[in-house]
């Protein structure tokens, strides 16, 4: 159907270097294999994320109330936390703009980068919520930490199954104005991790 498609592919076949001279290297599993909580927390802090403080007797709700005292709309995307609204009640992607704090569970984190992963499975098909909310609180288990980017891409099935999968490494940030680093650009202004174990 597409003539440009055929023309491009033909030109590539005519012009390319000899494929035999450029074999594909085997997949690499390199680098530091530490998948510990301390490494994750250190990386998270470098990227501007934080660990949500857990004081004696705290529940997730009390910890959020202390950290975000002015927030009105607390949206839950998990069954074990209530919030003021459930993510399923937001009818359109745009409605997520009313959320102050989104609470969501991440299936895994990456110790090398302090990254947490979210897909439509955790966001109940409302992917915009992870970006329109002012703040995000991510529930994570230390058991679900993978060491680095190699182990993440090789071992986690989500990269092959999710339609939308984001690795968030701290909050949104920019240094586009005179090189000044600003945490909290256009997406979430803060990202906090809540250890569930």
């Amino acid at each position, binding site marked *: 159907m597409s003539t440009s498609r055929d023309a491009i592919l033909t*030109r590539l076949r005519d012009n390319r270097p000899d494929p035999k001279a450029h074999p594909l290297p085997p997949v690499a599993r*390199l*680098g530091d294999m530490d998948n510990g909580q301390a490494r994750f927390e250190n990386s998270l802090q470098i990227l501007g994320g934080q660990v949500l403080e857990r004081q004696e007797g705290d529940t997730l709700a009390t910890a959020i109330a202390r950290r975000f005292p002015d927030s009105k709309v607390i949206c839950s995307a998990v069954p074990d936390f209530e919030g003021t609204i459930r993510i399923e009640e937001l009818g359109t992607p745009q409605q997520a703009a009313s959320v102050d704090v989104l609470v969501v569970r991440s299936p895994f984190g990456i110790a090398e980068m302090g990254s947490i992963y979210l897909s439509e499975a955790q966001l109940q098909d409302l992917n915009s919520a992870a970006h329109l909310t002012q703040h995000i609180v991510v529930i994570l288990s230390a058991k679900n930490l993978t060491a680095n980017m190699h182990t993440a891409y090789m071992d986690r099935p989500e990269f092959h199954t999710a339609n939308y999968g984001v690795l968030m490494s701290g909050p949104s940030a920019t240094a586009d104005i005179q090189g000044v680093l600003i945490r909290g650009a256009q997406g979430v202004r803060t990202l906090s991790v809540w250890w569930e174990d």
Partner: protein
Amino acid sequence: MKVKPVNHAKAAEAFIEDTAHMDFHDERLWDLRQKRDGQMHILPEWQELRARASAIKEHTLANLPEYLEQFEANAKKNGIHVHWAADGAEHNRIVGEILEKHGAKSLIKSKSMVTEECCMREYLEPRGVVVTETDLGERIQQLDNQMPSHIVVPAVHKLIPDVAKIFAEHYHTDPNDNSAQSLAWQQRLAARPVILSADAGMTGGNFVVAETGSFVVCTNEGNADLSATVPGLHIATIGIERLVPRMADMGVFIRLLSRSALGSPITQYTTHFRGPQKGSEMHVVLVDNGRSHRLGMEDFWTSLKCIRCGACMNTCPVYRRSGGLSYGAVYSGPIGAIIDPTFNERKYSTLPFASTMNGSCTNVCPVKINIHEQLYKWRRVLAEHHELPFVKREVMHMAGKLMGQPTLYRAAINGTEVALSTMPRFVLYNWLNPWGKHRELPHPVKQTFHSWYKQNRLKTKKKEGESA
């Protein structure tokens, strides 16, 4: 009519005149280079990552038609509409048609060098589509009606007062605002309503994974994810060279990209798009625009390995002191100087000369492109194709003659010494000698090495020969 070559030297001169801007630009980019070095030193496997990244990219380029077909088949299975554009005009037409079909009048987009290449905004806006750049730096450049001056930090040549002035004009904010924090906040406030009411969203793509039919977008501000997830239509414009074979290869590239670009371990957002989100439509436009032609250029095809990190720009002394806009092209800096001539040999014939050939670009390149060697090869190609500027060509021609004939050369050198010490300045420092604009010519020596050698050593040697 023949196009005029970009006058890089002249534009750079204007940039250099403004010391405050140039000094900041120079220091800011050098700071990024140093942060990159810091990240590199943390990883003992850095050189192995580079070697693998280079090998994966070379393999992919040598097998590009097969990988593109594999990507297309998998993407279609995932529900993505895949389009092919031979050039910028076809890309713009395709995007225009998708938008028209959806009745979309407002498009929010994240930064994409390919859409710059295609001049997409200039095509869509007269057709009634309001295009809003959502990346802060790119938005500043859009409002200021300028091209991005750097592929990663598009407004790096501007200072806070410049941005305050632009925002005051377009967002009606305080023209004397001198806080980057508050200006960035103004951008967030201005962008939100546009994002929430947009009909369509557009992103680029840093990597395309053949195995899964996915594409990966690496950003920091969150604007690309907003552009992709808020409107019900997502169009991604991607160059055909962005392929990698396997998802597992992404580990190598993600570990290199942001460390090389900004000296941060990873971008704040690394997003994997494998299909449309619920209730939405997704299109991928694969753009050739000269790439398939470049693949056939024996000396230059490896420039297609580029992952657009900008490390070569940050390290380049010429780029840091001349500013991205002086290159007059979508791609500036060392990488721009080796790919721009493939778009238009005459127009960009001056760019391969904007280099000291120090090789630093090659040393920092995460995918090991031999940038400085390609700069040199381009100079030769341009000379062969008679695309050298008149003065450079004539001077080279004369130099070639002189150097080829020792007697003539020696006579000329002796003459030069006389000239340097006796000729008035206006003869020595004029338009024939741009080198002398910001430099002084060396002091003439009393005697050339050759004549000294003839007088002293040659005599001694003769004597030694005689006595032996």
